[in-house]
């Protein structure tokens, strides 16, 4: 194995956005809604094209987004959102891809066959938000007990503050 030094040059975000726009057009996945927030690129694509988009971002020669920083879900009450934060080691590019998901019928294609590390990220989102990842090989609870029937990170789930009193077992009396 050889040691690889990566290129740590500063990145011009506008250039990356225009490059991404071209790539999106050439593949025909979706146009994408780009925005810059605190120096980070956010891009909204439709949920039908999310798998193809990420596959393209990973395999494209100019982009090479080969690393998942984070996948997470957000509950905006009217709709849910899945955010994929990708990073490219070779180019030092970062991008956050977002997909809007219907709250009534939450499902999206799994990207486990594109990225191996998506496995646990998606399992976690499934159990905390109830978003069904179609094509995930092993969709079962990860952090919560196996018999839960709620999704704790949805805004509709409220933390209940219960006061529990210690009941002395009868054995000691």
């Amino acid at each position: 194995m050889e040691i690889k030094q990566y290129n740590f040059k500063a990145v011009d975000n506008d250039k990356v956005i225009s490059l991404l726009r071209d790539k999106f057009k050439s593949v025909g996945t979706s146009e994408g809604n780009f925005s810059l927030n605190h120096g980070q690129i956010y891009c909204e694509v439709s949920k039908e094209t999310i798998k193809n988009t990420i596959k393209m971002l990973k395999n494209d020669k100019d982009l090479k987004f080969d690393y998942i920083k984070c996948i997470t879900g957000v509950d905006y009450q009217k709709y849910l959102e899945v955010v994929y934060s990708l990073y490219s080691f070779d180019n030092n590019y970062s991008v956050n891809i977002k997909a809007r998901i219907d709250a009534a019928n939450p499902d999206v294609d799994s990207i486990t066959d594109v990225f191996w590390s998506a496995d646990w990220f998606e399992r976690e989102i499934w159990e905390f938000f109830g978003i069904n990842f179609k094509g995930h090989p092993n969709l079962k609870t990860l952090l919560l007990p196996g018999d839960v029937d709620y999704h704790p990170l949805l805004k509709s789930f409220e933390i209940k503050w219960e006061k529990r009193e210690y009941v002395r077992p009868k054995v000691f009396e």
Partner: protein
Amino acid sequence: MADEIKNNEIEVDEISAVNEPGEFPKDYMEINFGPHHPSTHGVFRFIAKLDGEKILEVEPIVGYLHRGIEKIAENRTYVQFKPLVDRLDYTGAMNNEFGYCIAVEKLMELEVPLKAQAIRVICAELNRICAHEVFFGAMGLEVGAFTPFLFGFKDREIAMHLMEMLAGGRLTFNYFTIGGVRQDVPKGFYAETKEYLKKFKKNLAEYHELFSGNEIFVKRTKGVGVITREDAIEWSMSGPTLRGSGAVFDIRKVEPYSGYDKYDWEVPVGKNGDVYDRYLVRMNEMAQSARIIEQALESLPEGDHQAKVARVIKPPAGEIYLRVEGTKGEVGFYVVSDGTDKPYRMKIRTPSFNHLNALNYVLKNNYIADFPIILGSFDTVMGSVDR
């Protein structure tokens, strides 16, 4: 008697003939490991399928330490939530606070005074030394040597005393605030830290002499649990685990925060991606941390230790994903703010979570006796996996 032996031989041949590559043998053994086994570093359980001593498949089961920290964050103000961040990776608490504070500060577009930045770097690097010292001790236990444990913890004790001088706590500090640090550096900290670093460098050389070149240790760890660079990236591995596989990658260098680019230091890197390389990377990282602390102490600027911040912290609506180099790898905070004093969503990305995700892949075709070493080389902390 002779017939029986003959029969046995035939049976064995038949069994091995039935198995095709990629298929489990018919007589594999399933064992349960943990959640309270001492070599799992916390409450971690897995079910392993074994063929003799060889591991065929591993199913990690986590969640025994789940405290719902991400949900609690949505019901707390930004300041109230900060102490809980310490409890994620409790061996490197300062580095978690670092990530959280920087993320919120960037949302607020808040400038942190130079002095606070330097103090933060000193804290983070001291804590990195502490965390790697724990790793060093645990690694010794993993291969059956008890001395490194005592040596490592003896050194760590003094570093923790230094941080106690600053923060008043030994393990979970709550020292960083949004906009700086809670207190200024106390009298005597400068001299004591310098003295500690001098001793520490001497000790580190001794550790290398004692343990790194030890023939038994080298033979147990070289060529075990090999991860290639491509696979490490594919599995979202980070920190010393990724660097052990030959990637010169450190977030402190790539996306420098808090003035890390001002200091002169190197990124230690491995070559073979095995357990021994991951061990060496961590050991060499301690020396680099000492280097950074020395420079930061030398050039500690004058000024405030905290920026002027409103009492109620209300970042403007927006979102950010910010990552820092924790002790185990990339610690990331995805914060969504809706303009109120409570975060709308707080996702915490921890390195150990991803390292355990890859456990099945790494452990496959290794021997069960090597499991503690391989898991130990990731230096997982269950508090940060389960959150």
